[in-house]
């Protein structure tokens, strides 16, 4: 693995693209947070601000036809996989033009055109689905990868063990991406998993190769996930990743919640000092891969795209109420 400096020197375009993807996620969600209190995004909405690095890195590595699935907190994964921003915002606004036609909201995103196969809200719920997609890849002998994002709580679900076991047993092309942000809603890891456990080490015990990484370092995540994806693509079986990171805002909703008593302000501040977006931007500036005016124009372009997407979402029509009974079954 290259040092960040060397990586930037060798791959300046990739490093810039990582920053751009992170910023697109960050700025989109900041705008969601700002507008959420208007009461027009009427669905549970989970922001990943502070956690953008992993989804940006993995999304950039995956090919368009590689499958990806996510959780309730999937704006980052969806956007980085190439999911359509306008359709995502329209979905959060409950509009007909939404990626799920207004049936799913923020927690149920999909964009088939980039093989983002779905995000769902039940903890661990998409893990076996990703393994099943991997089984289909093996049966059809295509060289795709199936990637699933989940959090630290998902490894407490029985279905996680069942799914990893089957993926290892059948040597399926799955990339398990665990973003460990230390909290399941308000419940800290300490009340959920034994002290001293490292999730990635536990998974090795199932026979699944595993890697740990800094979830706030996009370049590290990119390099580590990159070599794993190639391994998975070659048919050598699944790989598991644990990336430690931190969600800045409340579990669900637009606000900060460091004052309500389940976590300390100092903890938040220490993570905020390691802001993945700012860290990469500073590094790129330091290595002269980016200039101040480059930052300015990157931000301007992203903000313009986001502004247009919000306008689209806000102004597009709601689905007709009499569509409610459609698509219960496929084909009638």
């Amino acid at each position, binding site marked *: 693995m290259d040092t960040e400096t060397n990586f930037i020197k060798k791959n300046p375009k990739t490093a810039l693209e990582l920053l751009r993807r992170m910023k697109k996620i960050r700025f989109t969600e900041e705008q969601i947070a700002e507008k959420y209190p208007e009461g027009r995004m009427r669905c549970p909405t989970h922001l990943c601000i502070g956690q953008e690095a992993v989804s940006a890195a993995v999304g950039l590595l995956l090919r368009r036809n590689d499958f990806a699935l996510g959780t309730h907190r999937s704006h980052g994964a969806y956007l980085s996989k190439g999911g359509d921003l306008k359709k995502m915002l329209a979905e959060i606004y409950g509009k007909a033009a939404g990626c799920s036609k207004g049936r799913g909201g923020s927690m149920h995103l999909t964009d088939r055109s980039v093989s983002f196969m779905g995000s769902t809200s039940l903890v661990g719920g998409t893990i076996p689905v990703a*393994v099943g997609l991997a089984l289909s890849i093996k049966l059809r002998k295509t060289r795709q990868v199936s990637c699933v994002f989940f959090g630290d709580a998902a490894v407490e679900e029985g279905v996680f063990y069942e799914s990893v076991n089957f993926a290892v047993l059948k040597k399926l092309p799955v990339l398990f991406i665990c973003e460990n942000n230390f909290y399941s809603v308000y419940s800290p890891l300490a009340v959920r998993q034994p002290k001293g456990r490292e999730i990635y080490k536990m998974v090795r015990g199932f026979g699944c190769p595993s890697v740990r990484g800094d979830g706030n370092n996009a370049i590290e995540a990119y390099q580590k996930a990159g070599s794993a994806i190639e391994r998975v693509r070659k048919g050598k079986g699944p790989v598991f990743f644990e990336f430690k990171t931190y969600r800045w805002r409340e579990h669900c909703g637009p606000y900060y919640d460091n004052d309500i008593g389940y976590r300390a302000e100092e903890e938040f501040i220490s993570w905020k000092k390691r802001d993945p977006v700012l860290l990469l931007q500073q590094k790129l500036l330091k290595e002269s891969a980016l200039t101040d005016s480059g930052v300015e124009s990157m931000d301007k372009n992203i903000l313009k795209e986001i502004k247009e997407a919000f306008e689209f979402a806000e102004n597009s029509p709601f689905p007709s109420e009499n569509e409610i009974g459609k698509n219960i*079954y*496929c084909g009638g």
Partner: protein
Amino acid sequence: MRLMTYAKAINEAYIEAMRRDKNVIAYGLGIDDPKGVFGTTLGLKDKFGKDRVFDTPTSENAMTGVGIGASLNGIRPVMCHQRVDFFLLAMDQLVNNAAKWHYMFGGGLSVPITIRLIIGRGWGQGPTHSQSLQAWFAHIPGLKVVMPATAADAKGLLLSAIFDENPVIYLEHRWLHNLEGDVPAGDYRVPIGKAKCLKKGGDISIVSFSYMTIEALRAVELLEKAGISCELIDLRTIKPIDWKTIFCSVRKTGRLLVLDTGVMTCGIAGEIIASVCTECFGSLKHSPVRIASPDIPTPTSYAMTRNFYSGAGDIARKILEIFGKNTETEVCGIKRPPHHDVPGEWFKGPF
């Protein structure tokens, strides 16, 4: 005539489906073991190979999710479980994912999976090996539920289920596996959502499904001799239900008896009676009646199960009551089998 057992008919449906479409795969715990899930999956692995027919880890929930995932990419998985009860571990994947995927993602993707579940009965199957939970599945929008009673329908509905674009729960009663019937050759399909009138009659409509249809056939014969003409409707599909056929029959006969293999409370029989009362109230000459299992976990003991399940005699007795006839003299024509806890001499347990 192509006489074969219900189990063999299921086996034929698998073979037909897997020959027609290489995307059909079959898996489940014990699918290729020497018993072949009561004979229903015998020989499949030899015919279609270990990639398409495979035994699985004992992971009901994940293996259901695996089926869902595979189906999103064009595979048609057929899963099986030797008892319904084990499948309860998979309700999360079934209800939250399989049933919802098509709808909640705006109709873009579908989940064409088939899940075979076997309902146990008798030989002390007891509290956790004999639950008949069709009402649970039918309660979930997005699922289809079928319960064939005859060998021909077993084949025809399994083929339809496999090639349906939606998740289909295929419930088969253990006491049906050895029953023989005439089964059409080839790609024989029975439409999902269509009931079948097994006998025309004018005095009362009997709506039944799965094993209860077999008991009903015996009762209907006896009642004919007692001068009561029954119309017997075998529902075949529990969801979506064929209301038209039910309502037409009740409007003609004015009377209704519904038979259910599940327990009474919140069951399919109750649902049918509710809708008939709403839609055909003016046609009813007698309050609708239902026969279902008591709201009690199934005990294991031979002695305690003696009257747990209802059979042809109970059906006949109930109908004679509706017509105000002497029950005891008439139903004495129905002989009870020597042992109440087996469907016939062929069944020696253990499950």
